[in-house]
């Protein structure tokens, strides 16, 4: 119980700190969105147009920073993120609602595939330690983990989409209506390549972590004992070794979410995918504070919650923690 309370407190503290950094960062950025806009229109907007835009965006009235902070906290808690500056006057919440499902689908699919495939391959490699299979898996995993996501995306588009024409070149779908059968097919065909790329680049990490934790677990006495007892290899592997090795992999997974987002930015950017990661890149480069803050917040909360769930999972799976605390 003490452990759970400590975790909840930590969750709240980290959440608050992230919120505050989130608030401070854009305000530390140089320049203003108006200058971004002026630059974007490269002389095609007259100075009076810029002045009119600044007024409409509410960028002229400067509030006290503490008042802003207070308002920001209040708005964040109520989910009111205001208007996007780069897509004015679209509401930030509208943009989130439009873009979030795409990323969830893409990342969800890719991560589940990578997780299942990666842990399986990792476990087998650990079990057949030193075999040819293992000696292929480790360097391959290493290479996958060192794969620049933007590069593999670009190459995939060049060869598979552009040269061979197997996949669409860009975007989330080509049909206006997303609910029809054709729309669904279009969504799937558009998601296939970016999802595969994402899965491939996250596969390596899962493979290696699973392999190493399984190898460690297998040197533990109870696994040695189970093997000595003459239990069938498969039984030992699945019942004892794999189950105990999965725990650290799961917690790792929760923390790795933040890294997955980084990979997703590149993939969505290269594929022009209509997801939240690409939106974040756009928000950052166009200094769209409200949008940037909201997406940051969504990601931070997702990672925090995933960590919290993983911590709670630990409590359920590892009784030692319920008694004491972790060092």
């Amino acid at each position: 119980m003490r452990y759970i309370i400590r975790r909840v407190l930590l969750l709240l503290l980290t959440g608050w700190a992230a919120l505050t950094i989130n608030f401070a960062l854009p305000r530390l950025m140089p320049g203003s969105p108006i200058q971004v806009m002026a630059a974007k229109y490269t002389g095609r907007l007259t100075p009076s147009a810029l002045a009119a835009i600044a007024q409409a965006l509410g960028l002229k009235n400067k509030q006290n920073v503490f008042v802003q902070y207070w308002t920001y906290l209040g708005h964040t808690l109520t989910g009111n993120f205001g208007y996007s500056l780069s897509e004015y006057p679209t509401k930030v919440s509208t943009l989130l609602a439009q873009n979030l499902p795409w990323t969830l689908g893409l990342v969800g699919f890719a991560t589940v595939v990578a997780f299942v495939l990666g842990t399986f391959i990792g476990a087998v490699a650990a079990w057949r330690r030193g075999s040819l299979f293992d000696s292929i898996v480790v360097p391959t995993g290493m290479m996958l983990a060192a794969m620049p996501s933007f590069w593999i995306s670009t190459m995939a588009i060049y060869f598979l989409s552009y040269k061979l024409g197997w996949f669409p070149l860009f975007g989330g779908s080509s049909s206006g209506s997303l609910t029809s059968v054709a729309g669904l097919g279009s969504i799937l065909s558009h998601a296939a390549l970016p999802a595969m790329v994402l899965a491939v680049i996250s596969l390596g990490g899962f493979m290696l972590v699973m392999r190493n934790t399984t190898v460690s677990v297998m040197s533990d006495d109870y696994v040695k004992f189970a093997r000595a007892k003459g239990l069938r290899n498969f039984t030992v592997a699945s019942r004892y070794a794999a189950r105990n090795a999965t725990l650290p992999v799961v917690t790792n997974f929760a923390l790795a979410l933040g890294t997955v987002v980084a990979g997703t930015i590149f993939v969505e950017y290269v594929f022009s995918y209509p997801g939240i990661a690409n939106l974040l890149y756009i928000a950052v480069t166009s200094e769209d504070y409200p949008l940037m803050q909201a997406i940051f917040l969504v990601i931070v909360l997702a990672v925090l919650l995933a960590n919290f769930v993983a911590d709670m999972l630990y409590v359920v799976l590892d009784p030692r923690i319920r008694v004491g605390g972790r060092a």
Partner: protein
Amino acid sequence: MKGFLHNKKALAGLSIIVFFGLVALLAPLLDPYNPNDFNFMPWLGPSSAHWLGTTGQGQDELSWLLYSARDSMLIALSTAGVISVVQLLFGIFSGYTGGLTDGVLSTVTNVFLVLPGLPLLIVIDAYLPNKGTVTTVFILTITGWAWGARVLRSQAISLRDRPFMEAARMSGERRWRIVLFNVVPNMFGVLAANFFGAAVYAVLTEAGLLFLGVINVNTISWGSMLYWAQAGSAMLENKWLPMLLPGVCILLLGTGFGLLNFAVDEVADPRLRRG
């Protein structure tokens, strides 16, 4: 150390790093042209004068490719170095010292772990006025130190409770000397593994930032080569070499550092050691 050299992964990783290290050192001698020379026709195909052809900017591709090893090695080693120092200090102050310091520092790590790194990088970069190597190392450090710091912290905590620390105190050792001669050397294995891990991170992330055009794309590097290939529509010009090769180099260098990371882990953790 001996075990390390007998480790195949370590040898493979070391060979890759040494190879790129040599290319980096000898680049001025190996380069057929100055990579900053824009005076050739753009988008020439491979020929005897330009083995890999020219860029859309009129530079010799091969010269660029070779010279880029410098940037990546420099960024990888200096970032990994700075990150290691930060992590070490963190490990000592948070893990070894403990107490309130530990509480504060641990919270800081947790915050950095959940903040999305890449966007944070872009935002911080936008804030910094000078866009040099130092800036790049700085922002890579800010967003890259937290992972390994946790590992070093728990290593320091476990060291703190080892009896030889008390034996050292009984021998009349001063605190700083214990830290320097007992704590730090015993963290070295983890530190080395983290160092190589940070190098992989630095190589990949710097290339990614260059590809997005966020940091100075006039650097002669693989990431900027990809940036210019993309910006110059190499794909539509049917020039795939300038897209393929820099990526392969990044991949290889990353794999090299990754293998070293893995090997150090294996040597340092007896449970992962073979046989």
